[in-house]
Each structure stands twice: as C-alpha cells, then as structure tokens.
C-alpha cells in the first residue's frame, strides 16, 4: 500500500531524513519508534505534504501513485489520514462545518456524491459516540478549549468520519491520561483494523502499543530505519532504551 524508498528530506535546508525505506501492506499495523529528533514528525509531515518539508530524493508510492506529486488535500482524497501530535485550534470554524467540508471535498475529488447535512450529522454523531465524545462538542469551534485528551479523541472522530485507507498517527498517545489512551487505542482498532487498511503509528513510548498491537516495529534514528522487528522490539526498546539499539 505504502512504499517508501531511500527517502531524503530537508527542513529549513537541513537534511532530516537520510535514506529512509519502509513498506506497508494492507492489513498491517506498523509502529515507528525513535528518540527525540530522529525525524519521526518530519516523516509524518513529508508524507502529509506540508509546505517546507521537502523530499529531496527517493520515492514514495501510495497504492501505486506517486504520493509526493500530490497536493495535501489530494493525498487525503486518495485515502491518507495524518493524525497530528498537536491538533490545531481553529476559532470561528465549527467541527461540524470543518468535517462536512472535508468529507465532501474528498468525495468531490473522488467523483462521489456529496453527503447531505442530515447524512453527515448522523455519521458524525455515531463516530463521536463511539469515541465517547459529547455530540455537543461537534458544534464547537475546532479544538478550541479542548483538553489534550479531547483533541486526540477529536482526531479519532475525524478519522472515523473520513474513513481513510492509511492512517499515519504522529504521537497520538502524547498527553493522554489512561482513559483517553484506551479510548484512542480502541478507536484506532475499530476504524483501521481491516484487511484493506493500514496504520503507521509514530510514537516515542510503548504504552499505546499495549492497546494497538503492531505487526512490525521499526526504530528510526538519525533519519533512517536502523532496525526492524516484531512487537517484541517495542518491549526491548522500553527495557533497554534507544541508546543501545540505535547505536
């Protein structure tokens, strides 16, 4: 589904990713772990298409398409979802308005029929309920005044509504208490655990992996994958620290 080959990328003229290669197949959950500054968030932004995060060489294909050629909103329409470490507050735009625009923009891009207001609300309410988010919060401005946990639940509600093929979740576990962590983990499993979907979890700690069992774990250090293994690798990292493994 996602195939990254020898990816190099720069931020502000500084090379952060230095030859990263990684392949994800449908039905798989991969975790990328690594110390601070290893390039984890940069990888998420490069895949999402953020301005200023430029791939300088290498290739990324998503379902056979050249992902790096697409604008950020086209990547979303193609089925990619980027979960933010710090979801952005947008005063003056309600969650409902934002998500309906997003869902319908994606549908337009794919040549599908638009969702009516009623159809959308039904979908949004169901997803909010599944994540334990009060439906009233859908009417509030996007993430404004939300706690850290509420913001991350809101990311999962968005993911549920947009129903992507591939989710890249950047430190989705940061800033969560144990209940929110559990809700978010269950959300990931419910929405994304399917034979035609895949997940790339970018995380610093092993704790989210207690709820979302990865099939593969990779260690990112110095801008490339330095080690790959099964779920046991995450436990080893937790025990030994990154120092020993990344060296």
């Amino acid at each position, binding site marked *: 589904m996602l195939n990254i080959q020898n990816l190099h990328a720069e931020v502000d003229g500084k090379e952060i990713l230095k030859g990263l290669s990684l392949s994800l197949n449908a039905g798989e959950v991969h975790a990328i772990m690594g110390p601070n500054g290893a390039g984890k968030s940069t990888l998420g932004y490069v895949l999402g298409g953020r301005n200023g995060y430029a791939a300088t060489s290498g290739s990324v294909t998503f379902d056979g398409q050249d992902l790096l050629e697409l604008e950020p*909103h086209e990547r*979303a329409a193609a089925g990619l979802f*980027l979960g933010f470490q710090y979801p*952005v507050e*947008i005063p003056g735009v309600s969650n409902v*308005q*934002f998500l309906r625009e997003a869902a319908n923009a994606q549908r337009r891009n794919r040549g599908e029929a638009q969702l009516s207001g009623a159809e959308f609300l039904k979908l949004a309410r169901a997803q909010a309920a599944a994540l334990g988010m009060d439906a009233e919060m859908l009417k509030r401005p996007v993430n404004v005044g939300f706690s850290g946990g509420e913001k991350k639940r809101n990311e999962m509600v968005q993911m549920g509504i*947009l129903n992507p093929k591939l989710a890249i979740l950047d430190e989705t576990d940061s800033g969560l208490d144990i209940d929110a962590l559990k809700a978010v983990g269950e959300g990931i499993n419910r929405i994304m655990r399917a034979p035609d979907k895949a997940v790339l979890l970018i995380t610093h700690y092993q704790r989210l992996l207690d709820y979302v069992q990865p099939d593969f774990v990779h260690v990112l250090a110095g801008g490339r994958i330095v080690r790959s293994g099964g779920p046991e690798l995450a436990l080893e990292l937790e025990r030994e620290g990154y120092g020993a493994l990344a060296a």
Partner: protein
Amino acid sequence: MTVLDLPSARQEAWRWSDMEALRAAAASPQAPAGINPADLFLDIDGPRLCFVDGVFEPAHSRPGPVEVTRQIAATDHPLGSLAIGEGWALHLGAEHAATCIQIVHLGTGGENHVPARILLADDAVATLVETFAGTGWANRLTAIALGKGARLMRSVRLVQTGGFVSIRDEAEIGEAASLVSIFLGAGGMGSRIDGALTLTGKGAFAEMGGALLTSGTQRQEAAVAVRHEQIEGTSRQIWRAVAADQSVASLAARVEVARGAQQTDGEQSLRGLLLQRTATVNLKPELEIFADDVKCAHGATVGELDRNALFYLQSRGIGEAQAKALLTHAFVTDALARIGEEPVREAFAADAAAWLEAAL
C-alpha cells in the same frame, strides 16, 4: 458642488483617508447602473426606502413609519456637514417598535448626499438594514438619539462596485439604551466609516464595529470614537480588516471615559489579516480615561493566515483556496456575529463569502 474642501492627510484623523478616490468618484459621470434596486432588498418583510443617486424613489419604496424629509446638517464634521437636503427620518414614540426597515442606496456616478435622523423615545425599538450599491460618491450623515431603554440595531453593508462611500454617525445614547451598528465593507469602493457615539445616560450600551475587506488598490477605513459620560456604560468596538493585493484597510478606534464615568466597561478589538504581504492594515487603538474605576480591554493585532491551521485543513482534504476562504471567513465572522436578525446576518456572511471567493 464644484469645489470640494476636503480634509487632508496631514490631519491626524484623516491620515489614512483616500480623498483622491472620493474626488474621482464625485467627478465620475452618471451611467446606467444596470442594477434593479428591487434586487438589493433582502427578502424580509418591513418598510423599504430606496434612494437612487440620493433621490427618493417612491416606486421601489413603502416607507411605513419612515418620513422622507429635507434636513439641515447640525454637525461640523467635514464630510457629514455636506449631507444636506432630502433625506429620511425615523421618529418612534415611547414603546413603539419598527423592525426590519431596509434602506437601499444605489448610485450611478457623481456625488449624492443624504442626511438621516433616528429618534427613539423611551423603550422604543427599531432595526434597520442599509445597503450601498452601484458607484459614485455616496455621502451620509446619520444623527441618532436614543431615549431611556430604547434599542436600535443597525446593519450597514457597502457593496458598491466602485466609487466611494462616506458615512458619518453621530449618536447620543440615553440611560439603559442600546445602540449596535455593524458595518461590512465588501465591495470595490473606497470608504470612510466615521462615528462619534456618546453614552449620555447611566448604564447605556454602544457598539460600533464590523469588517472591512479590501483588494486591488482599494482603501477602506473606519474611524470611531466612543465617549462615556455617565456611569456603568458599556461599549464594544470589534473590527476586522482583511487586505489583499496592494490594498489598505485602516481602523482607528477611540474610547474616552469622562471624569466620573465610573464602572465603565469598554472593549476594543482591532484585528487585521494580510492575505498578501503587499497589502497594508493600519490599526490605531486609543484610550483616554479620566475615571479610576474602569475596565477597558483592548487588543490590536495584524497577521497572516495561520500556516498550521491551513495545513490542518488541507490534510483533511480541503483544497488550499477553500481552506484559506474558510479561515478568512472565520476571522471575519466574529465581527458580523453581533447582527441580531438571522436573515440579515446570513446575507452579510454571504456578501463576505462572495468577496472571499473573488479575492482568493
């Protein structure tokens, strides 16, 4: 009027004014506007008045309680004092109400001047929507006096395709009375929205604010002074400016609190958004306070669209232009949210959205 004696940019209160655009509009020849005035009214029931080039048009009007009358300007304001001749007046007796009054001003070129007077006796209520369309120089003076407990909600939209609109409001707001005036500048004209509001009674409420949207080489400005003369008054000046291309949007807001006007609650929020770095937003917040038990919140900021927010929207599937429009609209919405009647608020929001679609 052959020779215009206009303020110069050397005067502090007029330093951002575009008097050249005003002169050009005044000198522009009249030409058919190609606009049916009937199309400029919102689809809401209520009295209607139409002025074409400053002349009352009975065919498109049903004035109800509003009188069409000649008036003499009682002001020394350099532009307001030019607004003499035929105009309109709304006088409501105690506890009377007149809602959803619409006044359409259509210009076809040249200059036109219309004075207006709104007098609301104790506990009277009025709501009013004004629309400026077409072109030419439209100059208006509106004198407002609100008795005890009277309430006036006024929404004004400037959607002329070119020319210039100058508005001068002079208001006296009595005890526990409330005046809310919201302006939207979303056309291609230059503008000067000028207000002097005085809270003359205890516990009065005055609000004047809105949004100015500029593009091309257009210049729009608002210059408002609110004076608190009595205790327990509240005032709000919430303005948003969005400037694209080489345009200039300027906001000057002043709060004066007289000696003894204790427990005044004043709020000033001036915010500018630059859609391109070639555009200019000028902000001038001013406070002059002679009482000691006063709350005056004030903020003035100019910035660009938040890149994080833009990427966040894009990453969810919203294209760049639409994402910018959504964020810019949200920025403006604050200032228009104060319009009380839903159909009017929606019409103003639609004008702002149409402007954004053209500018982005």
